[in-house]
Each structure stands twice: as structure tokens, then as C-alpha cells.
């Protein structure tokens, strides 16, 4: 039996095509995935991301615990509400998950983890808690729903749908959250556009969704969520990295703090195993579609596409690929598609931010 979010029936009512996504019955699209993609780049769209798991970490030892649990440095968070993107690493340096952590107060941090990895992550956190910070409270919050509203007009439309929310959220900077118990507004997302991710009690989710629809925010499925995040150059756990991948070979070195003297789980393994491969962007130079697992032939050996699709904004195919270290931006590679080799150029991603192409070929 697939799990369902509090918005399941609302999606059906809006004509969604539902699919199995990591054990959850989720909307793939509501008609046209490409239209939904453009809607987010040009105006505002909303996503049900209630399958993702919120976990509250509470107690005096919270920061000390996160300092060792996370590969990114929690001490970068000094302003209340600010968020940090980080990997959760295994001792061997493999990526257990990627997550967002919000600093709400010295004794309350809120973490958002992926749906498919939630049970594994929580078991890992509890195990680490038991030996390192037994008094710490770690509370999964399946009672919360989450709706992401993204796009250049997203914030204005949220304020239109929820007039009471404007005063307390209009001063939020990027990657900052505000708690309005029992609601939570964060200026974060997974699309490369401005907007909010709103956490709220599950029974309130359908009313918010309908209020946003009334403010002309269109529903967007997981299909467009994937092309939006790929254009924005954001990693997808299980595809671009997993337990067998070092974050240093997944384009995530910027999130791993190896400079400070701070120790963290996985640090020793990362220092002992310098990266041999790198994640790069690819642009297909002709018709066709790059897909995950296609082989990439380069001058320094073979690599593999980790995420590939059609970019509706660029109107051509793009991909993230793991290739040997030393392959430079601007190099030409050959991707094997159905027995043929098609040329793809190595580019610096992200491909698109704030509605505009932004990749670099040099």
C-alpha cells in the first residue's frame, strides 16, 4: 500500500496523474509537465512536498551534536531562522542523505530530510544521539504537511492567499525561516526560483492549497520538480549521490567543511580518499535526450550521466555527469545513446537561475 499525503484527494480532484515515488503516491503532473515547469519559471507554482520528513532536534546539546553529525559547518548559522544545506555522511564518507537544517534557537534546530531515506536517517540520528548526546530530543514530525510555492511571483501570491503572513515574512532573507506556531515559513526551495516552503499541521494543508489555487498559483507535479532542480543544478539523492558516493565526487565539496579543525562523521575517510572524479554539467549539441546511466566518453576515460533530461527553459537536453577529474569546462564529450555517440559539451552549472540561462562554457 502506497503512502499518501494529506493532499492526496485534492490532487485527484485537480486531475493529477499519480505515480509511485519512493513508496508514496504522488502527483507526476496535472496535464502538462512542461507547462508546469514554465509556470514556475515565469509566475508561481505550488508543490506538495509533504512526503519529505521534518525532524526537530531539541536540547542544550543540539548545536554540539549537529557539529559532528553534519558535513557542513553548523556554526555558519548564527542568525535565527537561517538555513544550511548539508550532507549526512556515513563513517566511510558515503552520503546517507542530503538535508536542510534550520537554526531556530540554541535549543531547537529543524531538519528536513528526503522521503525515501527518512527511516534510515532517523535510525542513524538516534543511534548517534544515544552515544553522543543522550539527553537530546529528536522528534520526527509526520504530523506536518509541507507545501512549496516557487516562482518570481510566489511570495506575493502567498501574501495574497494568506494576508496575515506578510508582516512577519517579508523581511526574510534567502535561506531564512520564520516560525508562526504551529506554522513555519522558509524562504527556501528546490527550483532555482524565489519562494517559500511552508510547513503546517496536516489537517490545514488542503485549505492552504485551495487558497493558493484561488490566488492563481498552479499545482506542479514531481515531473517538473525534477526538470526545475536539474536546470538549477541541484542534486537529487539516490541519483547524483548515494551511500557509495563521496560528496567530493558529487559536486558537493562546497558543502563539506574540511578547512576548520572541527571533526565530523566521515571527515577522516574524505581526507584519506581524495576525489578521482567530478560532477560536471553537459549540454547536448543536437536533438535527443540525455538520461541517467548513459555512458560519457571523455579524453580521460569514461564517465556516466547521473541525472539527465530535457530542459524546457533552454529547449535542449542537459545533464549532470560524473567524469574523470581533469576534464575541463568547454571540453567536448560523446554520450552513447542507443548505440550512437552524440556530442555533448562540458559546462559549468547551474544551467538556469531566476528564469534565465546562466551556465558557462568557459
Amino acid at each position, binding site marked *: 500500500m502506497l503512502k499518501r499525503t494529506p493532499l492526496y484527494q485534492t490532487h485527484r480532484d485537480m486531475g493529477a*496523474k499519480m505515480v509511485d515515488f519512493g513508496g508514496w503516491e504522488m502527483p*507526476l*503532473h496535472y496535464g*502538462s*509537465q*512542461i507547462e508546469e515547469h514554465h509556470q514556475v519559471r515565469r509566475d508561481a507554482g505550488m508543490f506538495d512536498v509533504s512526503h519529505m520528513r521534518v525532524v526537530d532536534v531539541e536540547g542544550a546539546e543540539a548545536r554540539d551534536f549537529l557539529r559532528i553529525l553534519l558535513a557542513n559547518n553548523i556554526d555558519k548559522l548564527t542568525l535565527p531562522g537561517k538555513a544550511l544545506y548539508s550532507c549526512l555522511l556515513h563513517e566511510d564518507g558515503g552520503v546517507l542523505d542530503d538535508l536542510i537544517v534550520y537554526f531556530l534557537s540554541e535549543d531547537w534546530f529543524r531538519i528536513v530530510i528526503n522521503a525515501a531515506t527518512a527511516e534510515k536517517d532517523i535510525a542513524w540520528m538516534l543511534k548517534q544521539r544515544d552515544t553522543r548526546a543522550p539527553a537530546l530530543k529528536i522528534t520526527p514530525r509526520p504530523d506536518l504537511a509541507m507545501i512549496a510555492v516557487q516562482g518570481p511571483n510566489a511570495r506575493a501570491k502567498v501574501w495574497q492567499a494568506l494576508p496575515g503572513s506578510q508582516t512577519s515574512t517579508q523581511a526574510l532573507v534567502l535561506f531564512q525561516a520564520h516560525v508562526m506556531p504551529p506554522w513555519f515559513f522558509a524562504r527556501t526551495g528546490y527550483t532555482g526560483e524565489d519562494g517559500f516552503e511552508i510547513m503546517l499541521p496536516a489537517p490545514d494543508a488542503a485549505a492552504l492549497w485551495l487558497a493558493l489555487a484561488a490566488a492563481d498559483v498552479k499545482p506542479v507535479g514531481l*515531473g517538473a520538480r525534477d*526538470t526545475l532542480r536539474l536546470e538549477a543544478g541541484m542534486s537529487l539523492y539516490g541519483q547524483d549521490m548515494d551511500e557509495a558516493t563521496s560528496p567530493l565526487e558529487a559536486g558537493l565539496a562546497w558543502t563539506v567543511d574540511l578547512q576548520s579543525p572541527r571533526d565530523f562523521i566521515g571527515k577522516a575517510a574524505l581526507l584519506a580518499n581524495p576525489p578521482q572524479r567530478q560532477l560536471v554539467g553537459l549540454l547536448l549539441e543536437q*536533438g*535527443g*535526450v540525455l*538520461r541517467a546511466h548513459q555512458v560519457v566518453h571523455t579524453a580521460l576515460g569514461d564517465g556516466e550521466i547521473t541525472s539527465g*533530461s*530535457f530542459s*524546457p527553459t533552454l529547449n535542449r*537536453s542537459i545533464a549532470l555527469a560524473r567524469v574523470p577529474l581533469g576534464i575541463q569546462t568547454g571540453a567536448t564529450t560523446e554520450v552513447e545513446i*542507443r548505440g550512437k555517440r552524440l556530442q555533448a559539451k562540458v559546462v559549468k552549472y547551474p544551467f538556469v537561475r531566476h528564469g534565465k540561462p546562466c551556465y558557462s562554457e568557459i
Partner: protein
Amino acid sequence: MTIPADLKYTASHEWVRREADGSMTVGITDAAQQMLGDLVYVEPPAAGRQLAVGEECAVVESVKSASDVYAPLAGKVTAANVELSGAPQLINQDAYGAWIFRIMPDNPADFDTLLDAAGYQAVVDAEGH
């Protein structure tokens, strides 16, 4: 979802129309385009290529996935719809207008062995679309 009564079909979701000159026009059905979602790339067979029945001869790719198109009957490709290379979404807009290729069949009687609309409807029903 529509299944015009004047066309023939395959269980692999191609439609076939017999033209006045004896050639056969081939595309994918409305049910197929609905399953695939937004199409972003179409690769038709080259004109002149000889096809065996059931042979993989074209590819249609949606944002989600790539799918093969199979030759509904044996014969030689006489034309490909070049309009689709710049506008694959035409198939989503009108699956029975946006043909993919034309074929001159080796044996014109093969046309009669294809599924009629009722037969194809049964295939779609059985697959649960």
C-alpha cells in the same frame, strides 16, 4: 482519449492509415501520447530504409522516458514527417494528425491483419489506461 474508426492499429500503440497511392501513414495513438506525456524529441526512420514487421524503427522521447516505435508492417520507408523535428509536441496536440513516417508495404494485404478500432480499444482497456 480517442480511437478513430477509420484507422488501423497495433497492440504496441501505432496507428496506420492507407493512402490513395497504397502507402501507409504511421503515427502513435492518443493513448500512447497520454502515457508518454510531453514529447520533446522524435527520431523517424530514414527514407529508403527497408523495415521488417515489428522492427524498432523510430524513437519518441518525452521528458520522462524514451519509447520505441515499431513497424506495423513490412515495407520501405518513403517519407518522414520533418515538421516533428522542431515541434515534437504536435503529437501531444493531435496524435492522429502528426504522423511520423510513411511506408510502402511489401504486401498490401498486411493492412487487413492490423487491429481495428474495437480491437485496439480492447488492448487499451486490458492495459488499464
